[in-house]
C-alpha cells in the first residue's frame, strides 16, 4: 500500500507542477535558512575539550577600580577576562593546581635557514611549560619544555605542524635551529594537527575563531625579549599607565591568560579561596577596591562568559526557525489548496472503498515526499549559502595566509557535518508533516459524496 501511495504522491505532484514547485521551494528556503543558522551555531557550540570538563578552569580576578561600568563593557558583572602580570605571578605560586599556565600571544620574525626564503612574521605564544600537558596538545615529534626552562629562559621552541612543514618540509626537526627575532632557538617539539574549536585558551580578538599559534616559546622570553602582547591589553585602574614594556609588569593592566587544571572539585574550591584570600590581602594595599568577584570557571562557562555563543548566534538560530515556521505556514496553505482542488478524486476514492485513514495516509505520504524534496533542495541551498557566507565572513581571515589549517578552520565553521545533515533530513520530514498534517486530516474527514458531482 505504501508503494501505491508513493506512486499516487508522485503522480499528484506531477499533476500540478507549479504548485508542487512552490511548496517544495517554500520548504527548501525555510530549511536552508534554519540549517545555515544551525550549522553556524553548531560550529561554535562544540565543547573543545570535553574530557577535561571538570578539571580545566580559567581564572580571572576583579582588579577593577570601584567605578560605574563603562558603556563599552559588554558584561560589567564579570571581572576582566585576563590577569595582570603581578596577579598571574602570585597565582602561579599556588601548589593547588596540578597544572597551571600563564601565557599570552605575541609575534616574532622568523628567519629561515634557507636564505632564499625571506624572513616572515609569525604568531608566537609565550607560555609556561604546563600548557602542552594541560590542554592535551598532541605532538608528532618531541615534546614541550620543562618548568625550569620557563624562567631561565631556555632557548627552545615548539613549532606547529604547519610551521615545521614550512621551515623543514615536515621532517623531524627536533634539535634543529630556528631563528626568531635574530635569536637562535632549538626545536624541542613539533605539534601534530591541533585545532581546538573554538580556540578557548585565548579568546582575545578572534572570539575563538582562529588557529593556534605557529610558535611556542617559554614564558620567560617575555622579559628577556621584551615581547609585547599582540592581544588585548586593558588597564583596569585609572592610576595605571603604560610607558614601555617594563610598565606592563607593574601596572594594573590585564594582558595574560591564566588556566589551571585540578585533580578534583575540592581543589578547585580551595583555589577559589586562595584567589579570594590573595585579593583580600591585596586590598590591604589599596588594590582590588571592589568586593571579591574572582572567578574560577570551567571551559563551557568560560565560552559562555565570552559570548562565543552569543546572543547574536542565538538570535540567528531563533530567526532561522521563525522563518522556517513562516515557510511551513505558507506550505500548509498551498497544500490545503492543492488537496482541496483534488478533493473530488479523494471523494471518488472514498466511494470506491478507501477508508478515511487510507486517504489521510495517502496525503501524508505526499507531504512527506514534498518535505523530503524540499529538504534535498534546501540542503543544496544551504551548501550554497554556506559557501557564500565563507566568502562574506571569513575572506579577510583567509587573505594573505598560506596556512592550510586556517582554511580548514574556516571550512569547518561552514561545514555541514553528519549530525547537522541528519538534523536537516529530520527537519525536512517534520516540516512536511507539520505543513501537511492538517490538510491531510481535513481532506480525510470530508464526506465521500461532497465532491462526487463535481468530479
Amino acid at each position, binding site marked *: 500500500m505504501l508503494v501505491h501511495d508513493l506512486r499516487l504522491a508522485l503522480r499528484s505532484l506531477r499533476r500540478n507542477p507549479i504548485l508542487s514547485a512552490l511548496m517544495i521551494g517554500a520548504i527548501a528556503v525555510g530549511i536552508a535558512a534554519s540549517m545555515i543558522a544551525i550549522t553556524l551555531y553548531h560550529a561554535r557550540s562544540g565543547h573543545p575539550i570535553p574530557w577535561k570538563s571538570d578539571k580545566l578552569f580559567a581564572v580571572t580576578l576583579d582588579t577593577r577600580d570601584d567605578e560605574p561600568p563603562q558603556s563599552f563593557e559588554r558584561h560589567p558583572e564579570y571581572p576582566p577576562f585576563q590577569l595582570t602580570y603581578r596577579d598571574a605571578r602570585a597565582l602561579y605560586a599556588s601548589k593547588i593546581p596540578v597544572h597551571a599556565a600563564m601565557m599570552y600571544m605575541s609575534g616574532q620574525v622568523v628567519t629561515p635557514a634557507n636564505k632564499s626564503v625571506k624572513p616572515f612574521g609569525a604568531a608566537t605564544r609565550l607560555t609556561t611549560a604546563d600548557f602542552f600537558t594541560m590542554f592535551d596538545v598532541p605532538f608528532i615529534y618531541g615534546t614541550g619544555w620543562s618548568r625550569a626552562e620557563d624562567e631561565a629562559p631556555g632557548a627552545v621552541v615548539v613549532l606547529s605542524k604547519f610551521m615545521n612543514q614550512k621551515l623543514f618540509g615536515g621532517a623531524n626537526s627536533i634539535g634543529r635551529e630556528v631563528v626568531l627575532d635574530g635569536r637562535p632557538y632549538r626545536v624541542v617539539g613539533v605539534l601534530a594537527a591541533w585545532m581546538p574549536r573554538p580556540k578557548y585558551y585565548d579568546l582575545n580578538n578572534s572570539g575563538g575563531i582562529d588557529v593556534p599559534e605557529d610558535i611556542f616559546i617559554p614564558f620567560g622570553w617575555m622579559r628577556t625579549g621584551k615581547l609585547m602582547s599582540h592581544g588585548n591589553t586593558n588597564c583596569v585602574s585609572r592610576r595605571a599607565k603604560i610607558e614601555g614594556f617594563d610598565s606592563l609588569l607593574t601596572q594594573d593592566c590585564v594582558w595574560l591568560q591564566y588556566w589551571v587544571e585540578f585533580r578534583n572539585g575540592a581543589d578547585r574550591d580551595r583555589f577559589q579561596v586562595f584567589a579570594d584570600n590573595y585579593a583580600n590581602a591585596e586590598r590591604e594595599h589599596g588594590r582590588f577596591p571592589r568586593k571579591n568577584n574572582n572567578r574560577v570557571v570551567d571551559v563551557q562557562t568560560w565560552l559562555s562568559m565570552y559570548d562565543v555563543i552569543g546572543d547574536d548566534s542565538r538570535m540567528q538560530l531563533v530567526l532561522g526557525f521563525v522563518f522556517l515556521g513562516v515557510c511551513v505556514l505558507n506550505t500548509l496553505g498551498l497544500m490545503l489548496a492543492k488537496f482541496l482542488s483534488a478533493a473530488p478524486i479523494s471523494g471518488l476514492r472514498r*466511494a*470506491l472503498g478507501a477508508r478515511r485513514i487510507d486517504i489521510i495516509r495517502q496525503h501524508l505520504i505526499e507531504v512527506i515526499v514534498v518535505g523530503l524534496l524540499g529538504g534535498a533542495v534546501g540542503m543544496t541551498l544551504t551548501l550554497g549559502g554556506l559557501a557564500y557566507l565563507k566568502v562574506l565572513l571569513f575572506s579577510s581571515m583567509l587573505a594573505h595566509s598560506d596556512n592550510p589549517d586556517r582554511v580548514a578552520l574556516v571550512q569547518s565553521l561552514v561545514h555541514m557535518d553528519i549530525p547537522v545533515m541528519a538534523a536537516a533530513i529530520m527537519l525536512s520530514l517534520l516540516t512536511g508533516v507539520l505543513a501537511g498534517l492538517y490538510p491531510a486530516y481535513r481532506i480525510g474527514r470530508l*464526506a465521500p459524496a461532497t465532491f462526487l458531482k463535481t468530479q
Partner: protein
Amino acid sequence: MIQMQNVSKIFRTDVVETHALRDLTLKVEAGEFVAITGHSGSGKTTFLNVAGLLEEFNGGRYTFDGQDVSRLTDNQRSRIRNEKIGFIFQGFNLIPDLNMYHNVEAPLHYRGMPGPERHRRITAALDRVGLSTRTKHIPSQLSGGQQQRAAIARAICGDPRVILADEPTGNLDTTMSSQIMELLLQINATGTTILMVTHNPELAQRAHRQFHIVDGRIDQIHQFRPLQSPQAVASHGL
C-alpha cells in the same frame, strides 16, 4: 437486497433546512434492475448516495444485504462500499491521470487484493466492456462512451452485489446510451442488482421496476417486467 423504511435526509445550513428524503420507504430485491426517476431536486441523487453509504441519513431504517447500516462505523461502511457496491456516475468520474488499467484497479487496491488476482479481474472487466485494447489510455484519450464503459469495468471488477448508477447515460448520445444500457442489462442478467437514476423514460422502461420520486418520497412505482427467480437469473448469465 435494499430495504428502506421511513428514511429521511435533511441538509441543514445556518439559515435553511432542506428535506431531501422524507420518510422514504422501498424494497429492492436481489437481482432486480430498478430505475429511479424524478425531476431535478426531487432527491434521486441523495437517495443513491444514502443507498450507496456515501451519506448518512437522519431517520428511519436502512437494511443493506440483510445488515442494518445505521450503526456501522465509517470503516465498516467503506468496506461495504468496496466489496458490495459498484458506482457509475454521470460524469464517469475516472481519475484523469491514471490509465484505464489503473482506474479499474483503484477499488481493488483498497481491498488488499494480491497483484495477480487484481490483474486477472482488471483484464476480465476491461475485456467484458470491450476496452481490452485501451488499457494504457488515459481518460482524455477516450470518447465519452468508452470512458463510461471503463467506469462500468471499474464498478464490476470487484464483483459487487449492487451497482448504483447515477444517470450513467446523461452525458452520452443516443447510440452510446443504448450501448451502455445494454451493458448494464447484461450485468444485471448475471444477478447483480442495479439501481439506476435516469431522466430517460425509454431507458427506465427497460428496468424491472421504476420508482418515481417526488419531494423526497416514492410517488409512483411501475412494474415493467417481472424479476426472474435467482435460478433463472443464474442460468441466464453471460
